[in-house]
């Protein structure tokens, strides 16, 4: 199957997750509330969206690691003569591991998004816990520090004059998760956190 079509399997849930965290989520939540009553609450919608985005991040990180491994075997997964060629990026031994420990970027992505998912999931399950606000802040700071890594990886792509679609989708997931953690912190601070409060648009 065409790898770009497979990529849609990540992009679509990423868009749905993002929608739950934005104004579009209000309409979506209302229309789904008859089937899923909890979605009427803004906080629940937002954290569901954040959970979806971080889960997509883990899944796409696993996929990039799988592609890296397949290329090292000598296979071709998503090679293209165009600028969009993840084989050229993920198969480049000089750039497909971190420059300090030599760990594959895919594995680093798995650890990073696993941590984000832990924060998002625990806060979703226990939103009134004492540590909830702290976890959301940590999530924001970690995803924000991920921007430095994303900048480094984009500089590699510029040097190679190739773009890895899968990596870019993971980078976008990180940016959306950063927004999700920041917004959740703001909602918590603003007191828009209780289930009984009516859903309001952002």
């Amino acid at each position, binding site marked *: 199957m065409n790898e770009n079509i497979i990529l849609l399997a990540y992009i679509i849930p990423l868009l749905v997750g993002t929608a739950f965290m934005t104004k579009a989520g209000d309409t979506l939540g209302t229309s789904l509330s008859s089937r899923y009553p909890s979605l009427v609450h803004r906080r629940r919608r937002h954290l569901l969206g954040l959970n979806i985005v971080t889960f997509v991040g*883990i899944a796409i990180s*696993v996929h990039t*690691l*799988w592609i*890296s*491994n*397949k290329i*090292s*075997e*000598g*296979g*071709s997964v998503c090679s293209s003569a165009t600028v969009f060629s993840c084989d050229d990026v993920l198969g*480049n*031994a*000089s750039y497909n591991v971190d420059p300090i420990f030599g760990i594959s970027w895919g594995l680093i992505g*798995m650890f990073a998004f*696993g941590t984000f*998912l*832990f924060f998002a*999931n*625990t806060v979703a*399950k*226990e939103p009134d*816990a*004492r*540590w909830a606000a702290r976890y959301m802040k940590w999530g924001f700071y970690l995803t924000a520090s991920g921007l430095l890594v994303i900048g480094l990886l984009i500089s590699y792509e510029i040097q190679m004059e190739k773009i890895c679609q899968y990596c870019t989708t993971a980078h976008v997931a990180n940016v959306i998760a950063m927004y999700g953690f920041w917004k959740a912190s703001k909602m918590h601070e603003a007191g828009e956190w209780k289930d009984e409060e009516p859903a309001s648009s952002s």
Partner: protein
Amino acid sequence: MKENTEADVRTDTAIKILALFFVAIIFLAFTTSPIKTGTKEGERAPPLEGMMYNGSGWTQFNMDDYMTTNWTVGDANGEWLVVEFMDTDCTFCLRDADEFGQVADFFMKISKDTDGTPAWNGPTVNFVASATELNIKGHDSSRAEIISFRDKTGDSSCAGNACSSRQGSAHNFMYVDDIDQENMQEWKIPGTPSYFIIQPDGIVAWVHSEHPQEKVSDGLFRLFDEQGLMPNE
């Protein structure tokens, strides 16, 4: 009875995420067999590319174009590749140039028997020299010097003498311009000359530094013998 349920939520979530992580690792372990990229035997050879001189002009060279990714051990149809890292001002490279040229002619099937048939009937072996410029005083290379070294023409100087006066005849294999040392650094070459034998699937099969007593030709014969690729078998 009062219970601290907060710890349970975090522990429960951590266990679930770790389980997810291990499922992913098991999936990767069962569906892939990654091969490290490097220059040790058994590793995948790093990229080798640049402008190549083959006797008629400078064209783009990419080692991948010479590889057969679906090659399997014992398949006689795959083309092997011998890579030499050299410097036209390196005295050891000049010393080896004659013999290396003869070995290349033999395995590239240029050398003929008296009846006109190729002297070597085994798998085709391509040869490429990556010509660099070592950071040593007096080592000043250029494309003209590479051409002069390969073809034994021109008036360029190699290690203080005319390149055209080096031992042996003109070479018939490709020379890649690596004056900027890009390939050399990619392959982590400590000095010249350095020799590598690459399998048709791009895996490093033999490294001279791991077999200092064995010449390139001996390495090729041994590998072909081990894989049942000798012509008389």
